[in-house]
């Protein structure tokens, strides 16, 4: 083949070499895939549902706190742990703030709400993006923008935490392709996976940006909504807990009283006595004792308005006075005994020592293990005096000192002899302590526990604060009644602030008012009623609504019936009964325990306080029933014929508007014609109860009916007298219906308004968040760019 085509032999060899080389290179290229990369050391983690996610998050927070503590202790950490410290700081800081704020709150509910608020905030921060962004985006795009992975060091991270740090090889190629397919990324695009990967990150970034943008509004809103819902539950929980605790406290009173004074208090008491052994007792002495025993500890431990009022309004001063006098008496006796004991203890230390030496010297000679010589040396009188002669010894200390010098006193007589030397002193000291403890248990403690336990009990049951059984009962009655009256927002606004409405109508007329006026004819046509036009006042409105209930027939909604009305109010009375009956039983036991107390004024006051509160609530409910009963009977022609309009109006005034003051001496009702007044009372409380009302109350045998009858009888008596000379009678009238309704309106209006604003805002932000997601993940432009990729520099 030499010389073919004029190629020299050398060049031919070169050409052959080049060809061989080229073939080799080509074969190597064909085999380029013979080696595969290792599987990544990290892995994608399962994505949990929101609840599990919250739990996992809590566990992770625990780990973060551990890492944080470790970092503080060792000064060492890693990037991931450091990065997460921000979250730890947020949580610890938030908890710290909540804890601090809780100390500034009075009621358990308010304290608890600080933590509920914190927890709700943290939960909202976690759940908001999960529920309203991540999950919808998953449904739309087929991947979780909050996908977590575990890195090669076992650390959990968010795969899209850093847009420049992309552990993309944790995704299988098929998974990327599936996401591309779901999101309609053209299949003919070169580098489709790269485009999809970039798109995943871009979409994740957009989702997270949306979360950041909306979280500022959504999280506080969600937190407030959660808190609003949680508050009622928390109040219920606190009421139940407080009543149970207070009832148990009453039932265990005997046991508590039998317990000796605790060690710390005893020691502190002895220290005060020791300090005053040589000087006259002064004011400071008594104030310190008062502070130490804190007979009215309830004030200190439960500083809230109700407690203070409760105690200060009763016999606090007398109790304090009694306590101070008792302390003085016992303290003087104690000081006297204490000084006597100290004198015995310190007197003649030398004689005690010498007595010991002579006593022990003989005994030691007969003991084995220690030579006489060494024993003599050890128990040399002077030395022993030095060791023992500090005047502050007792038998046990001497025995301990001897034991430390290998002198074990096992001889019963010897032991007794040593104890005998100190017996007088110790005996006197013991007597002092015993006296103190006895006094504390009997007098001081009784005073303290009586006040404390009763106070707790009374507050749990009848306190004015939100988390008491009766407050809840009152609120329930108020809400149930207001709901049944079914006022519109406009009506409620008018009833709670009439003057503003009047001015508005008279002068400027708001835009809304004008619009409403314009719409009124249309509304009329549509069959809507115009209660505003008919009822200018709350009283008119309430009477009309109650009349409607009275007029109820079977063809109307059951919720508007007499039966429903009464039973709906009754359930709140039942709820109070559920708590106060066992609780009052506990109080009876307590009363029995303290039957021997000289001064049971506190107990009496507490009992009265509880009873009055309940009577007040009952009175409020009964007035509602009485009003319904009246309106129901007024439907009858015969009744209307028997009573003049003036009488009827007076009866309505009494039941709807009549008020009292606590120390009432007169009833604030019309002082008009006495006969009219008398007739009105008869109409209200004297005539037979309407059958339907009676039936709804369970008839003759029903407890409610009995209570109602008693209420009517009492009211008849009270109103006839026209004088109320004690508190219990005053509160038994219950709250005027109009007041109850206005209060209910105020609460309902605020709640509804709040819900309208925040609920609407929440719905709005949810809507915006969901709507915004339609603009996320647009990829057409990206796809076009990828299609033209490289065009700019292509040759």
């Amino acid at each position, binding site marked *: 083949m030499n010389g073919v085509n004029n190629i020299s032999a050398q060049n031919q060899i070169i050409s052959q070499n080049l060809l061989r080389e080229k073939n080799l290179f080509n074969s190597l290229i064909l085999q*380029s895939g013979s080696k595969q990369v290792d599987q990544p050391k990290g892995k994608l983690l399962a994505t949990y549902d929101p609840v599990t996610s919250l739990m996992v998050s809590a566990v992770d927070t625990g780990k973060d706190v551990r890492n944080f503590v470790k970092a503080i202790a060792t000064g060492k950490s890693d990037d991931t742990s450091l990065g997460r410290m921000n979250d730890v700081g947020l949580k610890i800081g938030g908890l710290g703030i909540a804890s601090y704020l809780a100390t500034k709150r009075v009621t358990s509910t308010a304290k608890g709400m600080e933590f509920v608020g914190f927890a709700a905030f943290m939960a909202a921060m976690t759940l908001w993006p999960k529920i309203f962004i991540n999950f919808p985006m998953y449904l739309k795009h087929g991947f979780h923008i909050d996908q977590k992975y575990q890195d090669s060091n076992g650390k959990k991270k968010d795969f899209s935490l850093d847009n420049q740090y992309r552990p993309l090889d944790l995704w299988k190629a098929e998974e990327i392709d599936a996401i591309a397919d779901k999101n309609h990324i053209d299949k003919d695009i070169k580098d489709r996976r790269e485009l999809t990967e970039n798109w995943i990150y871009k979409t994740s970034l957009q989702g997270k940006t949306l979360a950041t943008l909306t979280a500022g509004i959504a999280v506080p809103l969600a937190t407030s909504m959660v808190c609003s819902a949680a508050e009622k539950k928390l109040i219920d929980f606190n009421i139940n807990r407080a009543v149970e605790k207070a009832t148990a406290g009453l039932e265990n009173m005997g046991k508590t009283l039998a317990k000796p004074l605790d060690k710390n208090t005893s020691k502190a008491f002895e220290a005060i006595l020791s300090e005053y052994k040589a000087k006259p007792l002064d004011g400071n002495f008594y104030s310190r004792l008062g502070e130490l025993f804190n007979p009215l500890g309830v004030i200190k431990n439960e500083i809230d308005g109700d407690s203070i009022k409760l105690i200060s309004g009763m016999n606090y001063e007398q109790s304090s006075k009694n306590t101070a006098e008792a302390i003085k008496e016992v303290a003087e006796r104690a000081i006297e005994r204490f000084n006597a004991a100290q004198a015995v203890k310190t007197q003649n230390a030398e004689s005690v020592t010498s007595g010991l030496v002579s006593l022990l010297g003989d005994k030691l000679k007969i003991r084995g293990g220690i030579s006489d010589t060494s024993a003599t040396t050890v128990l040399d009188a002077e030395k022993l005096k030095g060791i023992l002669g500090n005047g502050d010894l007792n038998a046990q200390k001497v025995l301990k000192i001897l034991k430390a010098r290998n002198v074990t006193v096992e001889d019963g007589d010897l032991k007794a002899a040593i104890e005998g030397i100190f017996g007088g002193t110790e005996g006197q000291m013991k007597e002092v302590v015993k006296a103190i403890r006895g006094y504390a248990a009997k007098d001081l403690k009784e005073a303290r526990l009586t006040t404390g336990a009763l106070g707790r009990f009374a507050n749990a049951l009848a306190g004015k604060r939100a988390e008491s059984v009766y407050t809840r009962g009152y609120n329930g009655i108020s809400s149930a009644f207001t709901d049944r009256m079914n006022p519109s927002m406009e009506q409620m606004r008018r009833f709670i602030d009439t003057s503003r409405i009047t001015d508005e109508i008279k002068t400027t007329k708001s835009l809304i008012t004008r619009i409403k006026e314009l719409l009124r004819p249309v509304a009329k046509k549509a069959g809507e009623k115009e209660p505003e036009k008919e009822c200018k006042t709350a009283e008119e409105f309430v009477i009309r609504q109650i009349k409607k209930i009275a007029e109820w027939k079977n063809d109307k909604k059951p919720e508007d019936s007499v039966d429903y009305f009464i039973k709906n109010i009754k359930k709140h009375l039942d709820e109070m009964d559920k708590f106060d009956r066992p609780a009052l039983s506990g109080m009876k036991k307590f009363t029995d325990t303290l039957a021997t107390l000289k001064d049971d004024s506190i107990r009496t006051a507490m009992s009265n306080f509880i009873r009055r509160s309940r009577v007040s609530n009952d009175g409020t409910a009964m007035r509602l029933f009485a009003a319904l009963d009246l309106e129901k009977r007024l439907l009858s022609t015969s009744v209307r014929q028997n009573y003049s309009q003036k009488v009827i109006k007076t009866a309505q005034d009494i039941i709807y508007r009549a008020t009292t003051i606590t120390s009432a001496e007169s009833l604030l009702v019309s002082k008009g014609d006495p006969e009219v007044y008398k007739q009105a009372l008869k109409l209200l409380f004297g005539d037979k109860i309407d059958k339907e009302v009676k039936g709804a109350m369970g008839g003759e045998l029903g407890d409610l009916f009995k209570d109602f009858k008693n209420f009517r009888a009492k009211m008849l008596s009270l109103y006839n007298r026209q004088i109320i000379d004690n508190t219990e009678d005053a509160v038994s009238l219950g709250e005027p219906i109009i007041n109850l309704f206005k209060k209910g309106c105020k609460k309902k209006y605020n709640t509804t308004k709040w819900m309208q604003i925040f609920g609407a805002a929440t719905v709005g932000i949810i809507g915006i968040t969901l709507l915004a997601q339609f603009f996320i993940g647009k990829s057409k432009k990206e796809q076009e760019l990828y299609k033209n990729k490289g065009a*700019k520099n292509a040759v």
Partner: protein
Amino acid sequence: MQCSPIYAPYYPAAGANAVNIQIFEPKAYASAPSAAPVPPMPQYSNQVYQYPQGSMYYPGVPFYPPFYPPYQPVQMPPLPQPPVAPASQPASPAPVAQPPVAPPPVIQPPVAPVSQPTSPAQVAHKNNLKSMFINNEASILAVNLRMMNPTDLDGNGLIQGSEESGNFINAVERLDEIKALGINTLHILPFHPPGKTKAMGVAGSLYAPADFLAIDPMLKDPKDPRSVEEQCKYFVDECHKRGIKVMLDLPSCASLDFAEKHPELMAKEKDGTDKTPGGWQDIRMFEPWQDKEKKILNRPLLEMHKQYVDKAVEYGMDGIRADVARAKPIEFWNVIIPYSRSKDPEFGWLAETYTYEDASPQLNMPADRPHDQLKAGFDTYYGQYHIFNQWNKAQNLYDYVIGNIGMSNNSKDGPKSLIGSFSTHDDQSPMFYGGAPWVMLTTGLQATLPQINPYFVDGVQTGDYYLYPYENAKVSGTSTDSSTATVHRGRLDIFNPGVKPQGPAPEIGIFMQQAMSLKNGAYKEVINKGSFIPLQTDNDDIIAFARHQDGKTLLVVANRNVNRTTNGTIIVPGLRQDQSLQNLVPNYGEKSQFQKENGKLKVSLGTSRFHVFEINSPNIERARGLKIYKQK
């Protein structure tokens, strides 16, 4: 400007008119204590060095620009006479830019070998770099040819105008000195013509080549009539004559000039622009794939790299160091490396790869996966010794060594090794961390740890701080589009035509010489093949391990603390009270004290002190409680 003599090399004498640099921050230099006494040059002896108080070797002492002793060139044999005229010149290696569909540029081999007195044929050289790597026998020095042996006449730190640049011919003058250090392999930092666009420095970055298949003409000695390629071969031959292997650095990216010419080779952003690796302005990334999803490689890029290998082999290179090896996939290297081995079975490959990354923190750059690179055919890799100063317990070092031994033993592709990457040209000079004692400590470790091919950057043998007087100054003469002499402070300058690396601590070189002699001399088998046995101590600062092979045992004891003396007890099975302890490397710095007991060594180790002793403990591998690690 009146300068202290100490800075004389940096500043021209007053009145000199050769000033062509502007110092933007004169205070940075003026603040140096002009009255500071010049520390006397320590003269090496077998005695412990006593550093003058206030010397820069002591941490905490304010640093001032180092004193550079006048360079004393090693007496070299006379240069061979260059031929008057070469018999023939090789064809121009410049590749021809082709559209993607066009065949890749083809480099025509020379029709006839160049006839030179020192042609490869006349040098008895047999490459065994691959074996050296996997047997841990290579001792590597990284050199920047253009700074290897230039002449800075005006002392301004820059080689400009008529000053002789570092080139292949004058670099030869330093080979004996390098050889004397115990170096047997040179890592030649990239020697291609740098790109000029958006360049870094006034000479352009070594890692931003404008032409991968050409040699920077700056490296040609103008006095020598041979072509730059021939001079390159001559240089390589001279290395080989001295038993020094030569490894060429293959840049991972290209300059903007290159990218402009070869768009078919470049990775594209979605908008069509070339991809830039995060953190760099002057380079653009290659596109290794034609179709990534179908795993089809970019053929033109493969061809260019094939030709790169051809060139390297043609120049007589013994191996390649792949810059940022992760920039190309395992499939890519699985072509190029076997191809090189088809030409030279002992062609060595070093991967610049460090540690496993879950994802890349660098924009556009794939995650680092050393295992994958080694699987692709690399023999040795960088590893993580450059963060040794952050390991605050000796156990961290042991763990890393043990992990790598396990990795190599489990490798299905044969044994693998690391280089002693305690300091690379990407790292700040180790002098900043702990001065000469620290450098000697890490040198000692490189010489005695298993699975390591010691690696140094030119200048470290004299303790260079790599501080340049022109740092970031505006320079009037530039060969790029930048007039700023960009410098990464404290790192070997790869952007400007600087002076030869030179530091104030030549004793490091002497220590290095002894340490390398130990590793590749009498204790070669023990160190390169022997077992690794971490020893128990009661102090985390004490590095203590034994190396053992065939009854021969070396005991290494060092203090990793650069701030203080460290005391403790080391459990050394087999050690006897009457054992003589002779340090096999030079002593330096603070004194260490040793108290021998049977099976135990109580030590008080000077700051950053390193010691290695041969002890008579032939059965140490059978001692209870010790874990023995052997590299297969």
